[in-house]
């Protein structure tokens, strides 16, 4: 009997011990707040990094505070007490709300919030034991009145062997992560204007129609007046928020850090999302300094332009000009000078045009960089043809006119000053592919600057390109240093054809990257046609009138065949290629059609559908932070899930209908149809993290396990 007694007493003692640990542990409540300590795992492995969170469930009308509580209040504080060797990170604060009481504005949370921190489990913790997490949580909770409160929470997580399953932990963690501010998808800059700070959010203006509210929340107290209005002003694609400095204004040179909260839509359908902002005041740099930057950028561009002359694509064109110079310079100094000027003008005009196009595209909101024109396969093909044609001309397959100056190309071949002008244009066109690697810094700087600066840098680049020839044509003393004309000029000219062919080969390779293998056939076929046309033109040039005309006609026909073939040959495969690449390349999704969905459902295949629109901010952010992440793509691949994307950018009644079916009047809508014909679709939240998606689409056996 005594043995039994002892055992049962021991059991009771153990049970009591357990209950006590539970009771004082992960939950605690005050009159206003229920707090609980949760973790991203059910067990830990030595060396793991886990997330823990303190969830506050707050009774209606009361609130707790963000890291910057605003005009009054106090941020919640969590002190973690952990075993030796374990460390806790800072609180990761979810996107706050503005809470206004009369003239006082606070930043905080109502209803519920989970404050996350990263915990590092020590490497030397023994498997089989427990990892105790204790948190002393202090907060101020206010409605009208404020009550400082403090609770102790504790959690014990079993320690398992490395490699063992750690479970899924609390779903609150993922919900909280979805509420954290994310990196801003738009470039944000800061300027000073009179008494106000102006936060400029570039690109957000395009979506302004769908935006309800925009508020900036400064990380630090008093950086902006917490309660002040933040008037919004749209300038092109840029949204400008005017921020009134508060009682602790931004010190000169300091960065403004905070969270930009953008609310889309209104009422119950609205979605608020926070974006991290950390910007330096662009105006704090003294004016002289930015002028210096501009001057050095212009100098850099000028040098870059000079270097461009030596590029394999430019040098041949330039050498043609130089050869012409050698021939004519001695007897016609004035004409030579004017040719030099015309050539320079041609280059500058081309660069000016490029600059203006860039500015126009930038104003249109396009994200472009230097060499943007090469994003078009058609342009690449055209330049490849041009290089090839110039090469043929240099090789002597054909020549236009008889002067050496005329062999540049068809356009550059025009004699007289317009010929020189167009040689300049040609030099610019062929120079652009070589610009990117050398001029990246200066052009990159120019692209981020106002139009005037951009044009200044571009014109410097052009001037640099024109400079050697300009100098040569203006300085007879330099001309005297040039070698005497002779046979070597022809040899050099012919030799120069080969860099042109090489450039054409490179461009065809670029084209193949853009439009697939078939475009090579189109491009090479076009080149054969061009070569044939050139040859026909040349052999009939000095024949009788009729033969000459026939030759010209055929040449023109072949030429247009090459161009049109290129136009249609390169245009059409583009979409075909996209379709064939669907499985392998970065297009891991397929366009949504009701028929495609029905087909997949009839086969009982799992399907994930993303209804999105180009003007929907949260859609784009979700695609960036969740749907295009490797973890999600892998999960889709492993689960054999077909990812369909329904684009609602332009109103589509089919999509509108399916949105309505799920009680929505707009995007985003994320649906997951699990495997099996009869499976009901799961609606995912409007704000996604990779984990929310991967957990939603995880095979059911895994989901049941925990």
């Amino acid at each position, binding site marked *: 009997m005594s043995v039994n007694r002892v055992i049962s007493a021991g059991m009771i003692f153990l049970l009591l011990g357990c209950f006590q640990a539970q009771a004082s542990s992960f939950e605690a409540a005050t009159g206003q707040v229920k707090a609980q300590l949760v973790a991203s795992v059910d067990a830990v492995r030595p060396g793991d990094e886990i997330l823990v969170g303190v969830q506050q469930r707050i009774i209606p009308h009361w609130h707790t505070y963000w890291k910057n509580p605003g005009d*009054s209040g106090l941020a919640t504080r969590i002190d973690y007490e952990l075993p030796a060797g374990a460390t806790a990170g800072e609180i990761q604060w979810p996107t706050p709300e503005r809470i206004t009481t*009369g003239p006082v504005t606070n930043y905080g949370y109502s209803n519920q919030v989970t404050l996350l921190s990263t915990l590092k489990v020590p490497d030397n913790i023994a498997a089989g034991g427990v990892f105790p997490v204790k948190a002393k949580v202090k907060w101020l909770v206010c409605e009208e009145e*404020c009550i400082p409160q403090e609770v102790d929470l504790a959690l014990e997580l079993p320690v398992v062997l490395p490699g063992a399953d750690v479970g899924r932990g609390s779903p609150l963690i993922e919900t909280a992560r979805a509420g954290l501010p994310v990196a801003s998808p738009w470039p944000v800059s800061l300027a000073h204007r009179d008494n106000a700070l102006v936060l400029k959010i570039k690109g957000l203006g395009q979506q302004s129609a769908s935006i309800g509210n925009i508020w900036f929340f400064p990380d630090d107290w008093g950086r902006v007046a917490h309660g002040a209005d933040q008037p919004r002003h749209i300038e092109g694609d840029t949204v400008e928020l005017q921020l*009134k400095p508060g009682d602790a204004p931004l010190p000169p040179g300091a960065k403004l850090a905070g969270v930009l909260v953008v609310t889309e839509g209104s009422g119950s359908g609205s979605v608020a999302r926070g974006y991290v902002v950390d910007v330096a005041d662009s105006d704090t740099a003294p004016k002289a300094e930015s002028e210096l930057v501009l001057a050095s950028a212009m100098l850099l561009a000028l040098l870059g332009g000079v270097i461009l002359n030596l590029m394999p694509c430019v040098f041949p064109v330039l050498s043609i000009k130089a050869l012409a110079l050698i021939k004519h310079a001695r007897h016609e100094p004035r004409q030579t000078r004017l040719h030099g000027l015309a050539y320079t003008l041609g280059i500058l005009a081309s660069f000016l045009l490029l600059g203006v196009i860039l500015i126009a595209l930038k104003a249109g909101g396009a994200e472009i960089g230097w060499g943007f024109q090469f994003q078009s396969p058609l342009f690449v093909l055209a330049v490849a043809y041009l290089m090839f044609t110039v090469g043929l001309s240099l090789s002597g397959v054909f020549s236009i006119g008889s002067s050496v100056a005329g062999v540049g190309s068809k356009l550059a071949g025009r004699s007289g000053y317009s010929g020189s002008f167009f040689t300049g244009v040609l030099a610019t066109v062929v120079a652009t592919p070589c610009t990117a690697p050398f001029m990246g810094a200066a052009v990159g700087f120019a692209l981020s600057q106002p139009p005037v600066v951009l044009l200044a840098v571009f014109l410097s680049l052009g001037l640099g390109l024109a400079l050697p020839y300009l100098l040569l044509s203006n300085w007879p003393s330099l001309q005297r240093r040039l070698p005497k004309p002779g046979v070597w000029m022809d040899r050099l000219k012919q030799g120069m054809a080969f860099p042109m062919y090489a450039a054409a080969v490179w461009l065809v390779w670029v084209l193949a990257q853009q439009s697939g293998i078939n475009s090579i056939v189109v491009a090479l076929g076009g080149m054969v046609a061009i070569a044939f046309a050139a040859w026909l033109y040349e052999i009939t040039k000095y024949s009788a009138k009729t033969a000459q005309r026939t030759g010209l006609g055929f040449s023109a026909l072949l030429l247009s065949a090459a161009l049109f073939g290129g136009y249609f040959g390169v245009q059409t495969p583009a979409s075909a290629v996209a379709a064939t690449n669907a499985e392998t390349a970065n297009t891991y999704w397929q366009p949504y059609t009701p028929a495609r969905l029905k087909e997949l459902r009839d086969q009982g295949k799992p399907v994930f559908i993303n209804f999105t629109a180009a003007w929907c901010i949260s859609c784009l952010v979700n695609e960036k932070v969740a749907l295009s992440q490797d973890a999600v793509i892998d999960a889709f691949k492993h689960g054999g899930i077909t990812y369909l994307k329904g684009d609602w950018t332009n109103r589509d009644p089919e999509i509108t209908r399916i949105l309505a079916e799920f009680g929505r009047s707009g995007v985003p809508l994320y649906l997951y149809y699990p495997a099996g014909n009869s499976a009901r679709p799961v609606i995912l939240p409007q704000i996604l993290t990779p984990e929310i998606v991967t957990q939603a689409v995880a095979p059911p056996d895994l989901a049941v396990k925990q």
Partner: protein
Amino acid sequence: MLANRFSQSVLAGFIFAFAAATAQAEPVVNQPAPVFSGATADGTTLNLADLKGKTVILEWTNHECPFVKKHYESGNIQSLQKQAAEQGIVWLQVISSAPGKQGHVDGETAKKLNSDRGATPSHTVFDPEGTIGKLYAATNTPQFFIINPEGVLLYKGGIDSIPSADKADIAKAENYISAALKELAAGKSITKSSTKPYGCTVKYAS
């Protein structure tokens, strides 16, 4: 296009002019402090303009606020009041709690509260409509303003550097008011003249 530009800049100009005007309305350190008059716990009317020639400290208070309690139950504010009195500084408690809201009291209660706490302000000023509070953009209790004999604002902000409701933090914190009083006594300007107040929200009517 040009006209559009122009009208935009004009509009922007107006907005900033307006922002500047409102910025001026708030008390700004080294600018004249807003003048006010209000009923006191003694039943008299106090006019700030009448206190010209004396240094004045304004203390926004609400006796039920845990942060106010922290600094009264610890004796922190009482000792600041004594320090101020020794320097001949006028200490005004201001209560902006609206009727029916936390901290709203009548004259008798106010006097009793102070005698119970051993507090010795020169006067307690009632601001049930929140007029004075909004004039000074007071948001917290406790919150302080110091005005020099010429009526210029010298200090605005909190009591100390550790925002908490925990009395144990008082000793560890940097007491801004005590430091300011010492600097005033030494004839120096106040080093930290604008600090972050912390505490309960002032219980305005709206």
